[in-house]
């Protein structure tokens, strides 16, 4: 017998939150100096109790809030999320902030733009939007606010 997808997801999600809550509570009661953990103990105790309560309800199948994620949504999210995470955790520093931003912006636009990929005009539009956005970002942050961003391999 297979469990319905949302119920299994609720168990996993609330289980993860409960694991974090219990870990935090355990750490706050075991770390030194104890004086620095007085407030965290107070908070983490309530955190752990509420998280375990939520986990217990999920195990019993009595969770009433949250619809979980269906497979279509997961499939839609996956490519964009991968692009975003690669952009933030690797490309921004390695390739350079503006280069990575340009590539990520263009990639997301291309992946999610409903305009047909076989039409040259769609590609030109995406390039113009990408260039315009990055020009505004450069003007605002680099020129106006003097924010010095990582240069990486390119810019």
């Amino acid at each position, binding site marked *: 017998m297979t469990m319905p997808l949302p119920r299994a997801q609720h168990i996993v999600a609330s289980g993860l939150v409960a694991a974090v809550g219990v870990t935090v509570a355990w750490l706050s009661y075991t770390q030194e100096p104890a004086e620095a953990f007085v407030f965290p103990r107070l908070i983490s105790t309530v955190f752990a109790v509420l998280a375990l309560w939520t986990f217990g309800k999920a195990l019993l199948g009595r969770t009433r809030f949250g619809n979980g994620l269906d497979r279509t949504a997961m499939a839609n999210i996956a490519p964009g999320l991968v692009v975003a995470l690669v952009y933030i955790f690797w490309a921004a520093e390695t390739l350079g902030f503006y280069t990575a931003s340009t590539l990520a912006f263009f990639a*997301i636009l291309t992946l999610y733009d*409903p305009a047909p990929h076989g039409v040259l005009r769609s590609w030109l539009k995406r390039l113009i939007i990408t260039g315009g956005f990055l020009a505004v970002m450069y003007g605002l942050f680099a020129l106006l606010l003097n924010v010095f961003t990582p240069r990486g391999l390119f810019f």
Partner: protein
Amino acid sequence: MEFLGYFGEVFAPANFGLLLLGTIGGLILGATPGLSPTMAVALLIPFTFRLEPAQGLILLGAAYTSTVAGGAVSAILLKIPGAPANIATTLDGHTMAMKGQGARALQLSFIASAVGGVVGVLLLIFLTPMLAQWALAFGPSHLFWLAILGVTVIGSLDSGSVVKGLLSGCIGLWLATIGFDDIMGAQRFIFHPSVAGGINVIPALIGLFAIPQVITMLARGRQPSGAEALTVERHPVGKAFREVFSRSRALTIGTVTGAVIGLVPGVGGQIAGLVAYDQAKKLSPERDKFGTGHSEGVIAAESANNAMVGPSLVPLLTLSIPGSPTAAVLLGGLLIHGIFPGSDLFDNYPDVAWTFINSMLVGQILMCIFGLYVAGLAARVAQVPNAVMAAVVLGLAVFGSYSVQNSMGDVYVMAALGTGMYFLERFGFSAAPLVLGLILGPIAEANFIQGSMIANATSSIGQYFFTGGLNLLLIVLVVASIAYSVWMELRDRRVTTKDEVIGEREARP
């Protein structure tokens, strides 16, 4: 009526020009997701070095006022609060925009902001000495309970699970403890070097609100456009004025709540909008409509945000205690001009103090006028296709987070919290109480520690935190807010169960 003697100074060409610049610039910065009032005012401080003290303060004050109001634009159109103060505005404002009433929501928010703002500045002018005395009555134990109340109240804001709302608040309070302990200097929960200095509120706020929105847009896939959900139709300004004043209960609750919360040192505007929204919801005969795009939600939240601005300066100007994070940055602006706020400020620098306060009064009117103009043009923002909006919001989130401290660590924190929040939201958790926990955590902890020290030196901790009229009142409010929310949830559950039973009966052959 001493302030009237300095009113002409506001309209001197240079002063008025700076007031206009600060107002318009503040509206644009406020409408830009990730650029909070605190950040805008901090960024403007270097520009005031060469200005006269009064001019510099006019610029900073105008930016403070208009960024708080401008944050409503992105809250309503993008569901990304431009500032923590605009969190509550997203609840009904964005829903109105989703229904094609974006222009109406924006107009209501700017008019309510101006009304609340004018009342707040008038309070600053007329009641400064008395209100400062009242704010002084709050000791560490009261501030601790007030911070806890801020978190528990938010549990009821989310119409879903009270337990998950409170759990979200606890997660936020725990996140606030990450980093070095202020008193002992001990490391706490530092799992990665990016959080060694603690979690900066601004990147966290950007991540918790922007990234789930980006992922939600991505989840729609290659659909033609998300623009139809944010279609903004024209809406007559006169009608918006009439609507704001016809919703006098929400306007009054918002204005009074914002003014009172603004007075409390350290709490500031973050919770003003949320508490006002919650109170307006509880006291409204149309409470069922809240969260579904009800105008009272926008009016209460936005009038509270700006009503907080004036009173938050009362403790700053009279006692050097900033009433909000932005007020704390303004304190820096005063000090660089050699002006030390305190009880003798109005004796030593009456021209600077009164010109600054008067400019804030005029600034509220200018903010309303230019805000309404922005509201008319804001329709264009809503027409941006889904894919473009997702990419733009992601880019702004990354650039905005990085620019706070020029740190990639902040970007990592933003991305991690935002991605985690999206998945938590899918399981009934909520970003608002988590953010409130994160913002109020340091206030709660600092006052808890301070109160404990006082208690150890004078009485017992139990006696210090659990006795006294104000402590008991706040504790009762904490318990009542949780109990009321639990009762509401149980009542809704009974109603749902009845409906389900009815549905089952009807479905039977």
